[in-house]
């Protein structure tokens, strides 16, 4: 049924239809509307589940671990600082092989504290052993949750569904919300591979030393490779059953004869596609590659989708301060370094808008891109702070100095 709703609401409705049995959550902007909606559904008994208001994100993931190990379908959601706070448990869940599904409403990590969108939170957990699926639209965010439970349970691996905080969670868009019967037909009951059962007791979570740790980790690696196939098959099955493409590994757009391809994750892809359409109209041979699955990294699919493009521009909403681009590294590893030029563009950090205008300006001169550039960087602001730091040892906290420099920001639009 078509609805005009906030992204968070769409996700809550999708999750509810997946019949989770235990939902546990700790509030953090911008995930709050998702868990509020789910708690209301549990409270008024529209959704038959246990809802635990936990005392921290660490507790949230821990409750999910206990619930999943006991054989229940478990769900939680978080962002940014919360994801970091539960980080130990995030890795634990993957190591234990528990098919928990978690929404990450992507938000920047502080300091400085910032409630707006970027991908640094999910990126910080990219090696935790979870699958990471990125939604381009609210429709896809909704759809990916339905797929996520099925993928997670088939593989016994936890899955993170990433959706841009505010840009998707707080945006009202038109979505097609499936019927309960459709979801039930697509998502079978949870049949655990391992479960705490007094009738057949097992010990889960033993220490493993040098004699077997490598093999345990190798199995995890193998499961990730298997996930590439499972994700593809699930997306295909979803398309067949629900009648629309959603998820999968990558989504190319006008890459057929492209000389330049812009690769990106998440909602920025929409803006990029609009920009690319304008550039195409001006004769540029440019295309877009949406990376829908980031972990496991679909190296083969990426390489294939890039086709003969000589130049890949990776638009990143996160930064590895010690090295530069994060997704760039994965893309570089997938490609033949001789054949392609790769440029990293860091954009949209901490919620700065990525505009068609700026993208157009950048991509129209793609040939002049250095290996790493920051979109819309205010060099004057940076230089003035550097000057302050050179002038005195006790120059004060840099972020505060720079904010003061900017003056009133409340009325900024872009």
């Amino acid at each position: 049924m078509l609805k005009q709703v906030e992204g968070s609401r769409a996700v809550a409705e999708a999750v509810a239809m997946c019949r989770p049995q235990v939902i546990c959550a700790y509030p953090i902007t911008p995930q709050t509307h998702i868990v509020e909606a789910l708690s209301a559904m549990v409270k008024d008994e529209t959704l038959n589940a246990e809802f635990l208001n936990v005392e921290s994100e660490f507790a949230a993931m821990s409750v999910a671990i206990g619930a999943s190990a006991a054989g229940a379908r478990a769900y939680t959601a978080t962002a940014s600082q919360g994801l970091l706070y539960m980080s130990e448990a995030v890795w634990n869940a993957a190591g234990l092989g528990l098919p928990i599904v978690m929404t990450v409403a992507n938000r920047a990590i502080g300091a400085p504290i910032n409630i707006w969108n970027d991908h640094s939170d999910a990126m910080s957990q990219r090696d935790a052993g979870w699958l990471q699926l990125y939604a381009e639209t609210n429709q896809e965010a909704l759809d990916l949750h339905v797929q996520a439970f099925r993928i997670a349970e088939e593989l016994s691996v936890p899955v993170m569904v990433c959706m841009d905080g505010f840009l998707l969670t707080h945006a009202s868009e038109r979505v097609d919300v499936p019927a309960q019967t459709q979801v039930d037909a697509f998502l079978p009951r949870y049949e655990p591979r391992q479960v705490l059962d007094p009738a057949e007791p097992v010990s889960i979570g033993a220490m493993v030393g040098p004699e077997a740790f490598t093999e345990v980790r190798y199995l995890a690696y193998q499961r990730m490779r298997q996930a590439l196939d499972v994700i593809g098959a699930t997306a295909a099955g979803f398309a067949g059953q629900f009648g629309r493409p959603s998820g999968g590994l990558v989504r190319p757009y006008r890459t057929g004869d492209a000389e330049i391809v812009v690769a990106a994750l998440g909602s920025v892809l929409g803006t990029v596609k609009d920009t690319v359409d304008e550039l195409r109209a001006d004769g540029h041979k440019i295309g877009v590659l949406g990376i829908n699955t980031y972990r496991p990294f679909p190296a083969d699919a990426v390489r294939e989708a890039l086709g003969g493009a000589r130049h890949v521009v990776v638009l990143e909403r996160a930064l590895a301060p010690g090295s530069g681009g994060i997704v760039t590294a994965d893309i570089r590893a997938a490609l033949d370094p001789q054949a392609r030029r790769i440029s990293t563009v860091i954009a949209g950090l901490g919620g700065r808008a990525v505009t068609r205008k700026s993208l157009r300006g950048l991509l129209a001169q793609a040939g002049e891109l250095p290996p790493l550039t920051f979109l819309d960087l205010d060099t004057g602001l940076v230089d003035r702070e550097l000057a302050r730091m050179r002038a005195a040892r006790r120059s004060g906290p840099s972020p505060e100095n720079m904010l003061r420099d900017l003056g009133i920001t409340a009325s900024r639009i872009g």
Partner: protein
Amino acid sequence: MPYQRIKFYQTGSLAVGNRLLAEDQRSVQSTAGRSNALTCGHRACQGCGEALGARYALDAVHRATQGQMIAVNATGCLEVFSTPFPETSWQIAWLHSLFGNAPAVASGVAAALKAMGRTDIRVVGQGGDGGTVDIGMACLSGMFERNDDVLYICYDNQAYMNTGVQRSGATPPAARTATTQAVGREPGNRFGQGKNVPLIAMAHEIGYVATATVADLRDLEYKATRAMDFHGARYLHILVPCPLGWGSAPADTIKVARLATESGLFPVFEAETGAVTSSTPIRHRVPVTDYLRIQARYAHLFRPRERTEVIARIQAAADRNIARFGLMPADISAERTGLPAPVPVTSPAGLGLEGR
């Protein structure tokens, strides 16, 4: 081993391992049919109080629940020595997640069982003092606050033993640990405020809180069993001496635990909904020095010189416990024990000792 009932024709004696008692009065451990939830072959040290306490407690819970139980364990000695890869000594369904989250994971298991309509299966969360008092405190408090249906058991050996005897929030004043060494002006652990988790549990007004030690098997079994009569959050705090960390003889574990209770340093009591309902009286009171002397972690209080002022402070703490929890029947006079009479102290509100 199959359960066998043994008939003895001698009566009126407790001599033969209490098998002469009526069945319902026998300890769980005395029955051949006990579950051995934690069975032999684990790698605990000789004389480990925690291995003993865990077996006592969990076998009692196993009987009380007819085996319908799941245990969630924090990282620590118990988890490590019970599951040396590729073996496990657990004969019950058992989950280990992390160090600081056992109460939350247990809450999750309980929620799942409820969601699946299996509230016949009961949940025990357990961990050492480190995982409970320090790093697990937030999760523990959350579990209490939500009144999740979990019995949480803390095996308190008063330091982070598994990682090499470092000080925890449960380490008593003056005790030597690897991070509160017996050197300097104030050797051993500093005198702080302590963190009385049974009282914290009582402050949450949960249904049942109790303390116990491995010195009194029947009392411990009774409390573990009683706890399973309740639903909702429950807390059991068990003192489990660690010969290695405490520097006591492995054969002295039960003796050390008994001295802890008889000196008044470890009060043994039960509480419901925030008020003490019973306390175990001290039968033969001893000065704290009897307890301190047999543990090398307190050796610096006696050699090279006796630190009388520190010992006096420890004694005062024991005296306060005795008064506060009513551990001495009123008619025991100072002459008999050779100790000053306990100073009456106004009981803090909520201990429920008014009128005792």
